């Protein structure tokens, strides 16, 4: 049995906001199955008593004062935007 079906691959692509071509859908079904089969190796290990790592090194929460500081100039922030209007990013209508 394969770990992930073509239909699931299409569902995952939709979650990831990717539109796959026919060939891509086929290719990724094959590839993800191979990778997940390989990943199933981890099930050889009993990890029921093992804490998952959250940080490899000893990182603690970092706090700072909530002070007002200058932000990036609006002109700079919009510089790389494909489209903008009145100081805002512009996109097509959400709904028709």
């Amino acid at each position, binding site marked *: 049995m394969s770990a992930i079906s073509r239909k699931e691959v299409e569902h995952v692509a939709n979650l990831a906001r990717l539109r796959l071509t026919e060939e891509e859908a086929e290719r990724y079904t094959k590839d993800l199955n191979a990778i997940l089969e390989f990943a199933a190796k981890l099930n050889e290990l009993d990890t029921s008593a093992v804490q998952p*790592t959250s940080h490899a090194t000893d990182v603690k929460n970092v706090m700072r004062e909530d002070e007002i500081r200058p932000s990036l100039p609006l002109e700079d922030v919009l510089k790389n935007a494909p489209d903008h209007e009145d100081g805002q990013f512009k996109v097509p209508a959400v709904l028709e």
Partner: protein
Amino acid sequence: MSLFDKRLTEIHSALRARELSVTDLVQASLASIRERDDKIKSVLLVDEEGALEQARKLDEQLVKKDKEPGLLFGLPAGLKDNIVTKGIRTTCASKFLANYDPIYDGTVSQKVKEADAVIVAKLNMDEFAMGGSNENSGFFPAKNPWNPEYVPGGSSGGSAAAMAARHFYFTLGSDTGGSIRQPAAFCGVVGLKPTYGRVSRFGLVAFASSLDQIGPITKNVEDAAYVLQAIAGHDPYDSTSADVEVPNFLEALTGDIKGLRIGVPKELIGEGIDPEVREAVLAALKQLESMGATWNEVSMPHTEYAVPAYYLLASSEASSNLARFDGVRYGVRADNADNLLDLYMESRSNGFGPEVKRRIMLGTYALSSGYYDAYYKKAQQVRTLIIQDFNNIFADYDVILHPTTPRTAFRIGEKTDDPVKMYLEDICTVPVNLAGLPAISVPCGFAQNGLPIGLQIIGRAFDEATILRVAHAYEQSAGYHLRKPEWVRG
């Protein structure tokens, strides 16, 4: 001999004596790229105007003596193209960011500038740092300087190839699962991945935030120590950067390794390692022994689980990090979208290359409802076991040593069809990232086919000083770092 073969102290004396100018250094870098990069395709963008302007300023400063020269004064540098540079296009070798013009400098970009180095060019890489061969560059693959039919490694393949070609005095790369060390090994240069948190990641386009780390690629260990000195340190803009003291790394290069205890994991020196690579590493161990170190075989029992755990974790983090590329605020927007959802879908589908999509898919799946425990959490638990493997060894040993890669560089196109086969090549490098440790790759010989072999030295967290000391002592006595490809000599 290239100008960039000289020691930093020699260059600085020549600059002080006016036998050399910063403009000369930058012109040498520009000429090397112009005349020789066609062979290896390591460079994506040259900022000729900006670099010459900066050189002129530094030359003036040298005359006026109004400012103390920085640690990396006048040295031409190339930065991997996932490190943002204000006003210099930064693409991550992705068509998605083909027109991205950063409005700020990454912390390392700023630090190399503050140290008075000159950023000359942005370097080729696997798209968004995903890959180990540079074949995933969205523009064109970089090639191995020792034989252009072979890959330079990746993802910092451009940074390593450019260094082997001596286009620059130093380059910067980034390492998520081996992306500094593996290309350094494949190209016969030195690559250092610092401890997670030693160098700020602010302005490094994120791939897997719990694993990514920036580091230098250089011609020798001394240069790596200089560059690390300049870029290390706590940064309030990166809350994962460590607030720990930065020692003087240059002072660590004593040449003395008497009494050093080396652990060699049997899982990474035996089966699965090419015999030529194994022989070279065993010869290096012998050399280190003759210098007063001792070594023992040790075990890292969870080694075989590191690659699958790594690919689940790195891809999960990537799928989340790369969600920001939506064609709204920056990047290339698809022009055929009717509504907002369409705009996301079309921009992302056109912008990302095949390997990036594959990993976004894998990560999205591993984090999706119903699979999180089976994949992501499981991988984080296995990560804990791998960290314990390292801790157990470091209780008795000062450093861990084994090959940087199981084999020397492979042919372009040889492994592109089989992602699992490609991923397995990362077995010697990914455990280090999972544990956040510092590691360095230094040249330790050449295979029959003339391709370089890399030796990897791993240290305790924040103990870059020890691995630099060991790597430097080895390098100075072995001398493999002095060899250059035929066409680079003269």
